[in-house]
């Protein structure tokens, strides 16, 4: 050790050099606030999301809501504003599409044609904008919206009609070119959001419209702002807290500054390494500096404490050599203990590495690394600095105290007493008063019954608390409910379909080859039967499932899917019209002026010549389906009826019938109108359905209804990318469920319910899958629980092993692990009672509890063992142990707890929880170390704690007790 410290200046310069280099690297530290990093990238759920986005397009949306304070949002002025905003946003790079009143798809019937147009129904001018709408045209727009409420209500317009919504879908770059210069999605999305804001602000100026933005990019933006303010505000604060704690402990400049400097250096190293290895700062990793500064200063404190003890014990003249000797003496005393403490803390943190979630992963690695750095600097850098301190200044320790008030000096002296070996010796003589801590222990765990009662109470309360503990991984909960972003989300959730979404994929059966084996593509994915999703046998139950879910879950704001479009197409194609809806078979042929054989003459052109060459391909495989003879198109009758005058009597009867049909008194006006319209198929309303009942269609069987759906798609061609995987022959469709709640618990129920429904009602071979942010958050709840259990297990086992090895006994390991396990379940209890959710971030508390809390256990056990070696009266041993270590443990716990408590001033509500909970855990784990442990030790005086050389004697005493 002497040789190591031969050239202290070299060590100092080296450490400062590394700090300089890594400190310079801090400029490269990047913040990452993207939402998706919190998703488990390797989990099938995440892969499913990416695959789904590849097929159906991006799910990243920025929402813009415009609300008027006077009447309807649909006015000529507002439509013009929405149009201008929409067309400008559409031009922004990386915007995939915009859905707003002025450009959302509107399927309608016109001159007997199926039109996939828009709600405005006008031609755009040369400037690319709609002309200003007249009042009459505004009414048409309103009517159009009312015509297809399934599609529009809560999507582009609020329930009350005061607010309009624009949904801007951003391109998802899920498979970036690895060679290309990568600009992060976060940056791109922020740019788009900025541009959208500029456009919307400019266009709504002086309009009196209230504009609100939401969506993942907005969340990311808030997160970034919060994090910046946290990093700049909290680090100085935690430095201050540690500074005060250190000063109160040592009351010297060295004692205050050295541990602080070393821990700050360790923090710089850690963050510097994060930058070097391109790890980013996230909400979770932003805790690292605070955690390091709070936890890491302990090692410096220990080193200095033992240095001061050695210094106090030294009698003689101080020279540079003897001073060095003193420093090394002190270090030798403490080195193992400090190393053990750091090792267990590292183990606690590193246990989180098993987490599948990237930010937790980096948190585990870098806090562990940072603790290691703190240890290293405490045992290398601090002694080196002490060594180069001018000897003349060394003796000045007490001179520094002269500046303190007498009162403080008295306290200081008392503390110095306690710290010094002299004081210990005095204690050994047993002439001191029992400490408060000792009394607390006596009260709770002073006897076996008390000990067991105490443990039973802890377990009981914890179980009650645990039962209240909720696991919820919704990222939005990280933000305080009163921040603007959350308020905006709540605003939108109230007015529109909801900002949380989940997607249901319904997949057709897997294609089988001749041998009946599943056909796979070159990536090994099963190939689905093309066109299987045009089958009414599946579309009907899918549509019914949507209705079922929509009516059962209040939180569902909207469900839009492939079936919404098919139903609408079917409706539009069945709008009563006497002329063109007549089936072909009923039309007179041939038309005038044509000869009967004119048709055959030319069609023989290729007859045999090509028929043979192209085999079955040229000749129609199936002849034109025969007209279904007993089918009479009801639309002819409908059309006639609709065109007829009606008596008041008939009219009233119709209304009365519709009223009854719609459910009588419980029916809404809309229900009644709907029933009324259906009666005469007004506007095709009776056909707003999946074509399923063969009696209503000119078909022989349901297979032909599948053909019908297929033909609708052919006619509609290409605008269903978001809802079907193939424009003509879909084998997979997507259902978009918008959720007004962010509860992952509720999402979980919905998912289970829908799966059960599918199992009951879907035809064989058809499957159902969930994907999207909502599903991933739900998946994460399971993962948080399993990863929490895993990391708990790892850390508790590590604790067990470390203690078992250092005390040479499995029982010691057990004894060490019990108070920690209690501290953790008590933490869950607090969370349960305080309604703090277990989520990605709060799941780190258990590891902190173990990693830091074990120090107290080890500290207490070590001291107790040392005292036990000197005395066999266990109560006296306990008393002395409290005297010697009690204050130290409390100070340490206070320092760490207060350090973390700084997080209470974080902008993130979840970090505030961390601050409070870690502080509580520090209290409970230190308190348990000083109650349960002495309780067991005095009750059983176990073998491992007794001195080895006095084994036999100890045993006799043990049985004597």
């Amino acid at each position, binding site marked *: 050790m002497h040789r190591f410290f031969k050239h202290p200046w070299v060590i100092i310069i080296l450490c400062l050099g590394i700090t300089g280099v890594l400190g310079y690297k801090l400029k490269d530290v990047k913040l990452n606030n993207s939402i998706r990093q919190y998703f488990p990238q390797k989990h099938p759920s995440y892969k499913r999301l990416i695959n789904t986005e590849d097929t159906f397009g991006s799910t990243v949306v920025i929402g813009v809501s415009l609300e008027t304070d006077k009447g309807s949002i649909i006015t000529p002025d507002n439509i013009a504003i929405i149009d201008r905003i929409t067309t400008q946003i559409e031009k922004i790079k990386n915007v995939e599409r915009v859905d707003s009143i002025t450009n959302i798809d509107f399927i309608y019937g016109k001159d007997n044609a199926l039109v996939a*147009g828009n709600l405005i129904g006008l031609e755009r001018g040369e400037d690319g904008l709609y002309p200003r709408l007249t009042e009459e045209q505004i009414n048409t727009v309103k009517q159009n919206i009312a015509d297809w409420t399934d599609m529009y209500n809560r999507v582009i317009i609020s329930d009350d009609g005061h607010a309009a919504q624009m949904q801007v879908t951003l391109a998802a770059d899920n498979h970036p070119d690895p060679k290309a210069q990568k600009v992060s999605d976060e940056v791109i999305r922020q740019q788009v959001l900025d541009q959208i804001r500029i456009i919307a602000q400019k266009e709504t100026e002086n309009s009196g419209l209230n504009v609100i933005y939401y969506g993942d990019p907005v969340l990311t933006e808030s997160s970034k702002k919060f994090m910046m303010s946290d990093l700049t505000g909290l680090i100085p604060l935690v430095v201050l807290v540690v500074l005060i704690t250190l000063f109160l402990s040592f009351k010297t400049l060295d004692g205050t500054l050295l541990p602080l400097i070393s821990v700050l250096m360790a923090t710089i190293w850690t963050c510097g390494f994060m930058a070097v290895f391109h790890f980013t700062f996230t909400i979770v990793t932003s805790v690292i500096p605070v955690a390091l500064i709070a936890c890491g200063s302990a090692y410096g404190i220990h080193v200095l404490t033992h240095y001061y003890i050695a210094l106090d014990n030294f009698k003689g003249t101080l020279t540079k050599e003897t001073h060095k000797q003193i420093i090394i003496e002190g270090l030798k005393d403490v080195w193992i203990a400090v190393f053990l403490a750091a090792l267990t803390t590292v183990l606690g943190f590193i246990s989180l590495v098993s987490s599948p979630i990237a930010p937790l992963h980096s948190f585990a690695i870098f806090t562990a690394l940072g603790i290691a750095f703190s240890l290293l600097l405490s045992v290398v850098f601090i002694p080196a600095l002490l060594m180069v301190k001018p000897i003349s200044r060394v003796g000045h320790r007490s001179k520094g105290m002269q500046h303190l008030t007498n009162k403080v000096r008295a306290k200081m002296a008392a503390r110095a007493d306690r710290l010094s070996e002299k004081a210990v010796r005095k204690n050994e003589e047993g002439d001191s008063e029992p400490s408060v801590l000792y009394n607390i222990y006596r009260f709770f765990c002073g006897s076996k019954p008390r000990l067991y009662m105490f443990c039973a109470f802890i377990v009981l309360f914890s179980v009650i608390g645990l039962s209240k503990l909720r696991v919820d991984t919704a990222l939005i909960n990280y933000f305080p409910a009163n921040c603007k972003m959350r308020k905006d989300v709540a605003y939108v959730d109230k007015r529109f379909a909801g900002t949380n979404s989940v997607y249901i994929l319904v997949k057709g059966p897997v294609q089988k080859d001749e041998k009946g084996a599943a056909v796979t593509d070159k990536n090994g994915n099963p190939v689905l039967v093309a*066109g299987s999703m045009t089958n009414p046998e599946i579309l009907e139950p899918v549509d019914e499932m949507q209705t079922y879910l929509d009516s059962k879950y209040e939180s569902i704001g909207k469900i839009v899917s492939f079936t919404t479009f098919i139903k609408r197409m079917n409706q539009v194609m069945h709008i009563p019209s006497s002329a063109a809806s007549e089936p072909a078979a009923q039309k007179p042929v041939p038309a005038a002026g044509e000869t009967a054989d004119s*048709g055959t003459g030319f*069609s023989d052109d290729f007859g045999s010549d*090509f028929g043979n060459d192209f085999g079955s*391909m040229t000749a129609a495989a199936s002849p034109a*389906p025969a007209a279904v003879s007993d089918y009479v198109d009801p639309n002819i009758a409908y059309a006639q009826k609709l065109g007829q005058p009606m008596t008041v009597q008939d009219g009233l009867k119709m209304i009365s019938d519709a009223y009854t049909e719609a459910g009588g008194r419980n029916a809404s006006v809309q229900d009644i109108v709907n029933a009324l319209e259906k009666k005469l198929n007004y506007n095709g309303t009776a056909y707003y359905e999946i074509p399923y009942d063969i009696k209503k269609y000119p078909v022989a069987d349901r297979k*032909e209804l599948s*053909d019908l759906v297929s*033909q609708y798609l052919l006619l509609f061609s290409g605008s269903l990318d978001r809802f079907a995987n193939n424009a003509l022959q879909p084998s997979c469709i997507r259902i978009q469920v918008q959720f007004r709640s962010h509860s992952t618990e509720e999402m979980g129920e919905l998912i289970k319910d829908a799966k059960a429904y599918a199992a009951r009602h879907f035809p064989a071979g058809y499957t159902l899958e969930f994907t999207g942010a909502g599903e991933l958050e739900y998946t994460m709840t399971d993962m948080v629980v399993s990863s929490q259990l895993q990391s708990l297990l790892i850390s508790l086992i590590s604790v067990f092993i470390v203690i078992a090895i250092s005390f040479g006994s499995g029982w010691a390991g057990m004894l060490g692990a019990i108070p920690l396990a209690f501290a953790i379940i008590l933490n869950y209890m607090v969370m349960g009672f305080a309604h703090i959710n277990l989520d990605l971030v709060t799941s780190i508390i258990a590891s902190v509890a173990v990693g830091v809390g074990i120090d107290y256990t080890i500290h207490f056990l070590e001291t107790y063992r040392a005292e036990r070696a000197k005395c066999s009266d266990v109560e006296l041993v306990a008393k002395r142990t409290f005297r010697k270590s009690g204050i130290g443990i409390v100070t340490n716990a206070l320092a760490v707890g207060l350090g973390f408590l700084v997080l209470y001033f974080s902008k993130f509500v979840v970090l505030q929880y961390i601050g409070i909970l870690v502080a509580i855990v520090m209290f409970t784990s230190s308190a348990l170390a000083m109650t349960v442990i002495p309780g067991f030790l005095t009750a059983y005086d176990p073998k491992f704690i007794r001195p080895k050389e006095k084994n036999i004697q100890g045993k006799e005493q043990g049985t004597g007790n």
Partner: protein
Amino acid sequence: MKKTLLKSAAVAALVMAAAGAAFAEDGRSIIQKVLAVKKPDFNHSMVKMDLIEKNGTVEESRIIEEFGRHNRDTDTSDLVIMFKNSTNKSNINIRFLQIENKGKDDDKWIYMPALRTTRRVNSSEGDKSFTGTDASYDDMATRELDDDTHELLGEETKNGFDCWKIKSTPTDKTMPKAQYKYRLQWIDKKTYIPVYAEMYDKKSGELEKVLTVEKLENINGYDIPTSNLLTNIQTGHSTRIAALQNKDGKYAIILDKQIPDSVFTQNFLNTGK
């Protein structure tokens, strides 16, 4: 005027309508000649239409019978397309009729076998895909000579042909309704047939579609592209339209043989005869 399907695959590139005269070989006069290429009065052909996925697998293969007529007086073309067969059985017997109207939107109808009725196809949806192909309805329709400004960019050998390379950009007036930002066309100097074309995305300005004439044949004195491939670069999907040939290599194309007017009616769509 309307192209036959074979030509209308060439469609996107083709700019038709004859007007005015030009003397110098500038962009406009070349396109003018392209539009003035001699067309048969009637054509009747069998073609194979393959919808090809990004990975090269044929998603759907259709055998189509096609009837076309060209009215020299009005310079308008009408077209009937019948899906005689398809690997997607649902599409068999679909029939399509397009009647060109000078100076106003064309009339289009489609016969839906499952409904046993003929429905009008809305004319204002030019950018929608034609029956799931990579061609839009607009790709199949007319662009008048002066809908675009035509710039001769140079001469190039493309696709094995000695060509003029022309950039056609919609005028300010036609831009709002135009489907593309601009098109590059390579016009074969010998036949005045566009043999290669690139269409550029209106929003991003990036290459969107590429049309390649894979085979150009002279049949009865008419230059007919007998195989065309239209690829959507952005989706990777493509459509190949090729005239059927018998084993002697004879194309299933009959030109200038009278086709009765009754073929170009809704009634024909309904009955198929």
